[in-house]
């Protein structure tokens, strides 16, 4: 981290100080700004009321004319949205601020810093004597702040590792949470009972409230886990284990919470209630998943028809998911599991249907919302800590903290012994340690505690204090130390390298192989069912839920196109290399073009002779003028329509064109001439939908043009007989062309030679930029003719 800022040179360091000062000033102003309106809000309310009455009374008597108010301050009118916006702004500015401080983000996880900020803000508000906005104790938390985070997690959940480890995850989530709840609750009750010298209050604590407390505090919190684990980059297996556990234990928590809350009043729980609890658990979890899956399928089905209204595609994803959450909450099912199921189910189909821009939109909106939500949650946690009624009891709190740790460790170790009998890849001690250590509690526990009613639970304040302490302990102590511990124990980190096409091919091959071997053994194992599901998916489901041609596209092709597109974009972004052969996505390979590598050792067969400067300039001129014309043809912008993406509409024609180009290329290749290869993948919608590394709009055509790699056309000398054949070949090919897709009207003379190369390059460049911007569909066809006429 220091090295990065250091590279900015001394001016950078000098700049950062006033920047920081400015930031702090802004923060203080904001804080004051948020406090004052709160103050202003509460006091003049009554005053205003009285004034209105007075005025009314007066008005009835006198009808006096008052001066027309030119400038008026009416805060009450906009109060609520204004305050919400202020809080969100505060949260975001805080996030900015942290990353400006040089070394802090590396040591302290963001969640700790945010809680600290929340404490400060809470303190300020308290000093100003105002009421803290009640966020964590109202439904606002569960209905507004939590869903974005969960949806973000569910939509981008890595399905394969999740499914492979599902058994383990379920064991930890269900059995582990149950164990934690009963262990903590039971032992707390025992401890409270045994101390005779203690103040009486602890003796009052019944077993059921203790168990309720245990169930609230035992659940691992997804928000906290995400916040911390995101920064330590451990390997995928551990990440998915802890994270999956935090998601799936919601069902257990919901059931236990409601069970104990209901029966605390009654005072006893019978065996029948326990039995009902188990059934309720099944209903809650499976019901939640079912609700989520239904909404997911609805969303996928809807997205099939959105080809004409691309603008609102992301909206469907968000709204359906949110409704899944709300519907599940309506029936007291597990909303979190519904949300996860919805996101996971709809994703493969929706992604196949929507445009690449919508995909980017969804991704960034989800990230944005979840980020803001997370920040707000931690800040409010700090604020509520300062505010909330506390009742500190040394025994209770310390015992709680110790029991949480102990029960977690015992639970994880015990369960791993059982789980390892069924796993192929066993969990090592290091893994177990990380899983145990990563079990953090967070805001969900706090909110659940806050929701308890004071009348039924006189010990509510004590509970809240204990919950806060545990949360602080796990987030601060465990959150801060987990990173050095991971380094110390040399736990395997996340592998950053991208998947190569080889891995993809071989993995699929091995899947088929294992399925075959399982069939030979007669064993209906993991692979067998996965294969069956895939077949079912391919045969029936994909046909219903994916529009048009895409339903038949195999996964490998989609993967391959994404890779090629990504590499093409990287290349354009980095400016390409002047001496490298061919630049744009080619059928043959992008491997030729890696700009970061030193010039390839095999230049001879692949390298193409450079063009003269003059030729290069000519090409640039032509391409530039074409692309400018293209831009001028953009239709006027209308908020309700996006210009149609030509690739998605004219797929089949482009495919035919492409095939013709390929056939031509083959003919040319046979004659041992290398031309730049025609661009194939850009035609396919998948290519266009490939995840772009950055915002497409940033790729204006200009920068790409200025750094255009040279076209290198390997030619025999123009006078050789072969060259003449080539030209004839082109002319013949031309006459065969019905449409104007490849107007390689090679003129006579030497200049004609380079034209075909240009034609390709021009087309390719156009296609590439077209993928990135959205010209009108008509722009393509007409432009091609002009540069290539003699």
């Amino acid at each position: 981290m220091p090295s990065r800022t250091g590279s900015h040179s001394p001016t950078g360091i000098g700049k950062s100080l006033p920047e920081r000062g400015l930031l702090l000033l802004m923060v203080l102003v904001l804080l004051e700004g948020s406090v004052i309106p709160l103050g202003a809000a509460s006091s003049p309310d009554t005053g205003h009321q009285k004034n209105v009455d007075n005025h009314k009374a007066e008005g009835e008597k006198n009808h006096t004319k008052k001066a027309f108010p030119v400038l008026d301050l009416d805060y009450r009118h906009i109060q609520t949205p204004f305050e919400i916006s202020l809080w969100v702004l505060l949260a975001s500015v805080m996030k900015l601020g942290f990353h400006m401080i040089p070394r802090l983000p590396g040591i302290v996880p963001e969640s700790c810093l945010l809680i600290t900020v929340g404490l400060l803000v809470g303190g300020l508000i308290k000093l100003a004597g105002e009421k803290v906005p009640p966020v964590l104790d109202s439904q606002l938390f569960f209905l507004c702040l939590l869903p974005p985070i969960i949806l973000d997690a569910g939509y981008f959940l890595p399905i394969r590792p999740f499914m492979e480890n599902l058994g383990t995850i379920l064991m930890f989530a269900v059995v582990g949470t149950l164990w934690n709840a009963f262990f903590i609750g039971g032992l707390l009750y025992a401890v409270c009972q045994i101390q005779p010298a203690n103040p009486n209050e602890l003796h009052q604590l019944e077993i059921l409230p203790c168990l309720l407390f245990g169930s609230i505090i035992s659940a691992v919190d997804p928000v906290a886990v995400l916040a911390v684990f995101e920064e330590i980059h451990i390997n995928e297996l551990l990440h998915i284990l802890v994270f999956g556990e935090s998601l799936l234990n919601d069902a257990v928590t919901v059931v236990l919470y409601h069970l104990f809350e209901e029966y605390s009043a009654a005072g006893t729980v019978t065996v029948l209630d326990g039995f009902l609890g188990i059934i309720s658990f099944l209903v809650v979890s499976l019901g939640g998943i079912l609700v989520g899956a239904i909404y997911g399928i609805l969303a996928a089905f809807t997205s099939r028809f959105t080809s004409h209204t691309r603008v609102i595609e992301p909206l469907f994803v968000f709204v359906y998911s949110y409704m899944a959450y709300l519907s599940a909450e309506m029936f007291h099912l597990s909303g979190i599991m519904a949300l996860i199921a919805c996101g996971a189910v709809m994703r493969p189909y929706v992604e196949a249907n929507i445009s690449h821009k919508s995909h980017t939109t969804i991704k960034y909106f989800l990230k944005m919302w979840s980020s803001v939500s997370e920040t707000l949650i931690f800040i409010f946690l700090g604020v509520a800590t300062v505010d909330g009624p506390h009742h500190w009891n040394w025994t209770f709190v310390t015992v709680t903290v110790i029991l949480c740790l102990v029960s977690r460790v015992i639970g994880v170790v015990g369960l791993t012994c059982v789980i390892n009998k069924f796993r192929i890849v066993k969990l090592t001690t290091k893994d177990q340690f990380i899983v145990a250590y990563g079990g953090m509690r967070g805001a969900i526990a706090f909110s659940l505690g806050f929701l308890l009613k004071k009348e039924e639970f006189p010990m509510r304040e004590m509970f809240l204090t204990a919950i806060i302490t545990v949360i602080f302990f796990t987030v601060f102590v465990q959150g801060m130390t987990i990173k050095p511990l991971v380094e110390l124990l040399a736990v395997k980190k996340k592998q950053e390298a991208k998947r190569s096409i080889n891995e993809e091919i071989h993995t699929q091959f091995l899947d088929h192989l294992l399925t075959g071997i399982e069939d030979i053994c007669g064993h209906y194992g993991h692979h067998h069912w996965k294969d069956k599901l895939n077949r079912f998916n391919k045969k029936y489901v994909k046909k219903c839920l994916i529009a048009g041609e895409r339903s038949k596209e195999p996964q490998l092709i989609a993967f391959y196109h994404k890779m090629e597109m990504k590499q093409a974009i990287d290349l354009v972004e980095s400016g390409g290399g002047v001496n490298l052969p061919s630049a744009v996505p080619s059928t043959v390979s992008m491997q030729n073009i890696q700009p970061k590598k030193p010039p390839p050792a095999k230049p001879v067969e692949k390298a193409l002779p450079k063009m003269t400067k003059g030729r290069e300039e000519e090409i640039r001129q032509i391409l530039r003028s074409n692309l400018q014309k293209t831009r001028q043809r953009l239709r006027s912008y209308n908020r309700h329509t996006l210009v149609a993406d030509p690739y998605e509409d004219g797929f089949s024609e482009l495919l035919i064109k492409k095939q013709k180009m390929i056939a031509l290329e083959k003919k040319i290749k046979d004659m041992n001439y290398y031309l730049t290869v025609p661009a194939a993948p850009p035609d396919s919608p998948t290519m266009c939908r490939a995840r772009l590394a950055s915002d497409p709009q940033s790729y204006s055509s200009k920068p790409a043009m200025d750094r255009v790699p040279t076209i290198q056309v390997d030619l025999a000398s123009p006078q050789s007989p072969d060259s003449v054949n080539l030209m004839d070949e082109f002319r013949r090919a031309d006459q065969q062309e019905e449409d104007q897709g490849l107007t390689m009207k090679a003129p006579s003379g030497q200049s004609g030679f380079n034209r075909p190369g240009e034609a390709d390059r021009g087309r390719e460049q156009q296609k590439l930029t077209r993928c990135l911007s959205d010209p009108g569909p008509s722009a393509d066809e007409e432009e091609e003719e002009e540069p290539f006429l003699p």
Partner: protein
Amino acid sequence: MGSKSSSLNKIPNAQELMQETGFSAAHILRLYERFEFLDVDQMGELRPEDFGAIRELSMNPIGDRIISAFFSPGKETVDFASFVRILAHFRSTETNRTRDGAQPEPANSRTRKLKFAFQLYDQDRDGKISREELLQVLRTMMEMQVTEEQLQSIAERAIQEADLDQDDAISFDEFRKSMEKVDIDHKMSIRFLS
């Protein structure tokens, strides 16, 4: 226990097989029962048609390659010992009992597993996966849903990525290298057999 050992006696060379492959007696028995089930004409040997009778295997894109992997080149039948030896490749690596250095590498070591997979690609057994062989595999896996040039480009890219010595084919070492990030023990093990 008694019944098990007597059923074990039915199986020729049971002890040797257990020693060689690392299967336990229960596994050998289970495999023997399966072998007998597949062997419809009770000849003590399996023929390709017996494998073909397994319905799901016929739907598998690489089904026939798997079947032919059981048959050593030139032979037309598979006896129980070869059956077990091939399946030994799919045992999980972690249940290996300690062995002394003198014994040959167990069948389910990572290298042997990869070698088995490699041989499924390399049908002509020349020690390399040529472009044509790779294309064939891709063609069968994709089941005619893609165009020829798409296949060509994928194969080209795959070879370019993996081919380190520029001979336009993937040798076993290159194959192994390209798979180093994949958890082979997990991907090529069947729980049933461990």
